[in-house]
């Protein structure tokens, strides 16, 4: 199948990140549960008592609007991908749109596809703007992920999000060269309604899950565009831990200087639908005109979206218009396991 391209060229006209302030060290989890923290992340971000996917999305989206320098009324879609929407029924996206001052003539929806839901929203935004149906569309990936206490996922399930405004290529900080999406029914991770924690399918999470989908989407995209790893200044992968993206990157021929700047997992954990999109925002904070960026998501269940972006002369003028991803990473308060339980609402108050 060929690379996906919209009829009208589109770009990212604004982007913004948000990461909560609190960090739980892996050593705190292994102190309580006696597990092995070897090979996992050093810290994961933890949302405050008053934070959820909606509040994370609002701040990331405000930063994207600040960089885009557009009136939010021009946004014709606000789409949020997450596995932790605060309501089972009632959109997060309308709350976010209202907070931003978006008008009523707007599409709004919540998407769900494990960690890929945010890039799915981005693909939809590209299509909406690229077809000429809308001038601007907002795509957000945000999560406050939970892992079962003592489970391997508890080390990494983190919180954060990033927002992107898709608009005309002429106004873009980075223009889209093409994208490729690859999905299959692979049961590597799931959560049934009413359950507090997800389950994962052991051996399915690596080879048939992450690696098969990520490698397929990237290889198809690069082949379709006639590009090789050396054409890219940066490559950003979904990062459930630091090891998976590093291994996938190396298998695809990328070197550390290409994938390390967008690899944040060791410092903040896995922000699920926000994970690859936060890696992308960290790279956009430092990229220069002419740089080419590969963005690759992965979502369990399973699928991967791969995008090729080319940075324009506009980006340097936008980078300082909102806080950088690094500023949020460095704004950190280390917490212990008891505080973590409190912030995650695990203490019974009445």
């Amino acid at each position: 199948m060929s690379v996906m391209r919209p009829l009208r060229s589109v770009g990212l006209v604004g982007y913004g990140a948000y990461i909560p302030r609190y960090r739980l060290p892996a050593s705190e989890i292994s102190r309580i549960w006696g597990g092995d923290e070897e090979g996992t992340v050093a810290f994961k971000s933890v949302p405050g008592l008053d934070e959820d996917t909606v509040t994370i999305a609002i701040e990331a989206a405000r930063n994207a609007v600040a960089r885009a320098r557009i009136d939010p009324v021009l946004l014709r879609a606000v789409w949020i991908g997450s596995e932790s929407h605060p309501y089972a029924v009632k959109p997060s996206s309308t709350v976010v749109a209202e907070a931003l001052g978006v008008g009523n003539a707007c599409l709004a929806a919540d998407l769900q596809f494990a960690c890929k839901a945010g890039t799915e929203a981005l693909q939809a935004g590209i299509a909406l703007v690229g077809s000429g149906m809308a001038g601007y569309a907002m795509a957000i990936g945000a999560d406050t992920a939970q892992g079962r206490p003592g489970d391997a996922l508890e080390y990494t399930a983190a919180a954060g999000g990033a927002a992107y405004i898709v608009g005309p290529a002429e106004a873009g900080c980075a223009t889209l060269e093409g994208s490729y999406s690859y999905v299959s029914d692979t049961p590597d991770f799931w959560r049934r309604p009413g359950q507090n924690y997800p389950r994962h399918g052991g051996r399915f999470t690596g080879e048939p899950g992450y690696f098969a989908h990520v490698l397929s989407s990237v290889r198809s995209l690069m082949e379709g565009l006639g590009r090789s790893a050396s054409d890219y200044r940066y490559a950003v992968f979904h990062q459930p831990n630091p090891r998976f993206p590093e291994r996938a990157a190396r298998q695809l021929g990328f070197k550390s200087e290409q994938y390390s700047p967008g690899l944040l997992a060791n410092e903040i954990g896995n922000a699920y639908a926000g994970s690859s999109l936060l890696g992308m925002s960290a790279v956009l904070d430092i990229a220069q005109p002419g740089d080419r960026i590969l963005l690759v998501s992965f979502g369990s269940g399973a699928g991967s979206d791969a995008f090729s972006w080319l940075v324009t002369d506009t980006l340097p003028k936008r980078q300082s218009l909102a806080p950088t991803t690094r500023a949020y990473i460095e704004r950190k308060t280390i917490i212990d396991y008891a505080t973590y339980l409190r912030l995650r609402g695990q203490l019974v108050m009445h």
Partner: protein
Amino acid sequence: MSLASSWRTRKFRLGFVGEICPQCHAKLFPPRDICPHCGGPAKEPLAFSGHGTVYSYTTMSVAPRGFEGQTPYVAALVKTEEGPLVTAQLTDVASDEVFIGMPVEMVTRHINEEGDDGIINYHFKFRPELAAAAKH
């Protein structure tokens, strides 16, 4: 907060939207029907910048119903860049880190909820200016 009042005040609560008086151009927060400065009708919405400084504050150790799980937290009077004093919770800050004159910025956060099956209320709060916080 009733559903009706929560709905009616959504732009004020979520977007920190006040008013500007069309007669005397006073910036008003919260929004109201009559301008307190000139007595004329005030209806023009104005999105405030969200930047300000702590004018006064108090640490809440005993909280009203619905806020018990959040103590201790700081309630503050914030002097907005536009002028009006606004009462709001501070967030992302320990009570011993707060000082009079502290630069703060508006964020939209979860404030309370109407039980486990009710509506979730979001509201503006203030936190230390991020640019300053990142330096610590």
